[in-house]
């Protein structure tokens, strides 16, 4: 099984206010699609450890949304919602990502992110292209900054420490 050599590319296109991520998965398209669109599967991977994604409601259809919390090891809940705009079964979906409260009321203080996820099966792999676009360059910057300062930093710092000890 080729899990170690899976392709991943990541780039920040500041001029077009976009983040682009491509990743290859060693699984057929139907399963990768399911993992991205079914809440019981999303809950298993969407949040980086030790955080955990917990779905409150999920309605994967055009005009529907996914309301979930990122739950921290200390019980902190960060509520998010993804509104699905367009869905082309097994091919592509687009949506808007926002921060909100537990009832799904959007917090307009935080930048909105526009997602496009495209799925393509090639040989025995599935490629997922993700584009996250913003209204303003400063929103992109804030999104990156915020994601780490308020929430994920601890997990990533653990990883940083681990990597540092292995390097030195």
């Amino acid at each position, binding site marked *: 099984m080729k899990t170690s050599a899976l392709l991943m590319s*990541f780039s*920040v296109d500041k001029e077009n206010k976009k983040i682009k991520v491509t*990743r290859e998965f060693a699984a057929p398209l139907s399963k990768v699609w399911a*993992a991205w669109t079914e809440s019981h*599967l999303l809950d298993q*991977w969407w949040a*980086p450890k030790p955080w955990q994604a917990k779905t409150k409601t999920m309605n994967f259809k055009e005009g529907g949304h996914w309301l979930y919390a990122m739950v921290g090891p200390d019980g902190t809940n960060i509520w998010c919602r993804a509104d699905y705009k367009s869905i082309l079964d097994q091919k592509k979906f687009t949506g808007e990502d926002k921060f909100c409260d537990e009832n799904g009321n959007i917090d307009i203080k935080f930048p909105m992110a526009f997602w496009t996820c495209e799925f393509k099966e090639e040989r025995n792999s599935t490629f997922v292209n993700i584009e996250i676009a913003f209204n303003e*360059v400063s929103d992109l910057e804030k999104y*990156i900054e915020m994601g780490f300062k308020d929430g994920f930093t601890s997990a*990533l710092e653990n990883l940083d420490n681990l990597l540092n000890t292995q390097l030195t």
Partner: protein
Amino acid sequence: MRRDVFKAIADPTRRAILVLIATRAMTPNALADEFDSTRQAVSKHIRILTECRFLKQEKVGREIYYHYNPDKLKEIDKWLEQFRKHWENRFDQLDHVLINLKSDKNEN
């Protein structure tokens, strides 16, 4: 108001200024001599870079010298690197979910 750091380094003239300053501290006049654009244009670039803390000012006698602040670029690298790792983590977890999915449902 805080300046947008990504916008600051997206400009080619400002990147050129950073490259020049990285090797030695320079006065605004010495910097302006390196470019075809007007002094006003160069000083506007300097102001933006200073507001973003890419440059540090130092007064020597009557002259102001600009120094490069390496910490600022490191800060940006760190953000992006963390963000990239965040995605890597997420996808590693997804790999596991997919492996379990495969064994749950019988493959042809």
